């Protein structure tokens, strides 16, 4: 099931940040994605909250700048 969460995160990133799905890797970081600016960060987090029906803590918002950080956060929120 973790693979499924991983795939859904990558799909959401691809849609929000306008990247071909193959270009997002398990270790993708904000620094390597030009579109990932502060405005798109807000779009990305609202999109992840809608995709997984979770509410991400405001303290985590600014920290979720990579695929591993997002996956770890979702795991803490009980997403399997």
């Amino acid at each position, binding site marked *: 099931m973790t693979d499924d969460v991983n795939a859904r995160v990558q*799909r*959401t990133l691809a*849609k*929000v940040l*306008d990247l071909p799905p193959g270009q997002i890797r398990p270790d993708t970081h904000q620094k390597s994605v030009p579109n990932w600016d502060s*405005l798109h960060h*807000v*779009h990305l987090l*609202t*999109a992840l909250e*809608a*995709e997984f029906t979770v*509410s991400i803590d*405001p303290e985590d*918002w600014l920290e979720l700048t990579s695929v591993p950080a997002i996956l770890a956060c979702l795991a803490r929120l009980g997403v399997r």
Partner: protein
Amino acid sequence: MIAVASPAPPPLAELLAELDGTPASYLRLARGIEDRSAELGAPRRIALLASFTTELLAPYLVVEAARRQFAAAPYFAPFGQIEQVILDGAGPLYAAPLDLCVIAVRLEDTAPALVDGFVGLSGDEARRQLAEHVARICACVRALRQRSAARVLVWNQPPPRRLAAGLADPGLALAQATLVAECNRALAAELAAIPDAYVFDAHRVATELGTAAFYDAKLAALARMPFSPRAQAALAAQLARQAAALWRAPCKVLVLDLDNTLWGGVLGEDGIAGIALGGDYPGSAFTAFQRVVASYRDRGVLLAIASKNNEADVTEAFAQHTGLVLRWDDFVARQIHWNDKATSLRAIAAELNLGLDALALFDDNPVERAWVRRELPEVTVIDVPASPLGYGDALDASGAFDLVTITREDRERTRLYQSDQARQRLADTAGSVDDFLRALAMRISIGAIGADTLPRVVQLLAKTNQFNTTTRRHGQAELEAMIASGAIALWMRVEDRFGDNGLVGVAIAVPEPGTGSNPVGVAMQTGTTGAAPAAFRIDSFLMSCRVLGRRAEHALLGAIARRAHAAGARALIGEFIPSKKNAPAADFYRDAGFTPEPGTPAAGMADVTAIAAPARWHLALPDRPASAPPSDLFEVLEVS
């Protein structure tokens, strides 16, 4: 050079069908529909000026605009800088022509004392601060109006997230909920006096969603965006819908099926006693839908029937069934027979003298809807849900009849068309057209367009397609600017023995630049400086199809000619710009005695689709003052 063919982008409808309402799908789609001018026309530039951050609305706005068939090019002003941006005449707001300016100011941002500090304020102090808020916003709108002809939408106040007095609010001498309502009423009243400025009903959007789902404390704290993603999508959808209504003509006729649409069951099989209408469910659901339809009638939508039935059964049902809200006379056209629905819709359009694009069909049967979509793509076919409980909402959501203002003519339209039918019976018995026109005993009044007539005039400019020489859709502000710079702008009303047709004609003539001063030196009376023009060019000349074929257009043209003459001009220039629909006006200037200017096709122009270039016509005005052309067909009264 080798040209590399890029794959054709998928059709817009296909992309829009992918939308699932999630933020990710809005973002993805917003990119997919960039540069769709071929399908959506040139992008409309829309500015958002707000007391909060609006950039996050971009994908929602772009996608919802595409769903309403236009391309949106949004410009987001820095938050909180409404006055600065409007007053900076050389600034980014005016860097390109602006189609729409949206102003959104929340009390929470600019007058927090009226929100969380509400309990500490006296009623008088609260009202004083409220008046200040409304005055500030309207000053912004007026300042914008002086600098731009853009339409303006101003957000009213949504219900507050919390009530400062909590449970005690309804019992306060001035409840917070009442204060918000007073604020919104004051805003609407003051905006009504500013041309092309309208309320955007954010209060209604919030009410439909519920305040708990509308506000988002986290986005407010982290991104200065007070509204949830769902609310952003809903606000953008409503903005796009209202914007579309500002620059697109609505449908005019709601064509209704009967069986399983206006009542449950099949009349021909179940009989009058067997159909579901009134009483308990499911009859109650159809009664509720009829009440919704009646509200459309009341605001000016014409109703018609297209039903496969025996007409005698239907007339009997309308005469006898006590559960009907709609009466037989509410329908201005009725096609009740066993021919196909496309034939019925064509007949309704012909009978009412309207284009097929003026019709919207509401029919429960998906096969009929698919047939009409295929046969008559011009007709708006409304998606109808399976349950009659959803009919009213489906009709409302279609937006097919959206109007931003309702005029006196709208409220009286059904009566106007009923008198049309009496006219038709007279025409059927009259010996000749002239006999018929004389028997109508028309009284035509003509006057200068002023504040009282502007809303109806702008509405006619926006929606008249057939007898319209140039189809220029001037807004109120543009029209006022034309009048201020010397245009002759006239309205025409037509009354006859069957009733008042209302304000049905508009003519606007502007001084033609480059025609120099007139040879006789008559002073201009329009208050502009400089020499009188030698010619006036008729920028717009249009008439509602309700009075087509009555020669009333010649009375209006005569008034334009007399006033142009009085202003010193010795020539009139008539323009004809062909559109898909304005063939009825193609020969107007020729019939009125104008001669074609060089380059204008000399042959008859009934087939306007064959004419690529606009035509110009010329009419010399004699030196001696022109007098009203004698006519025994109507009486003409120039009132102002």
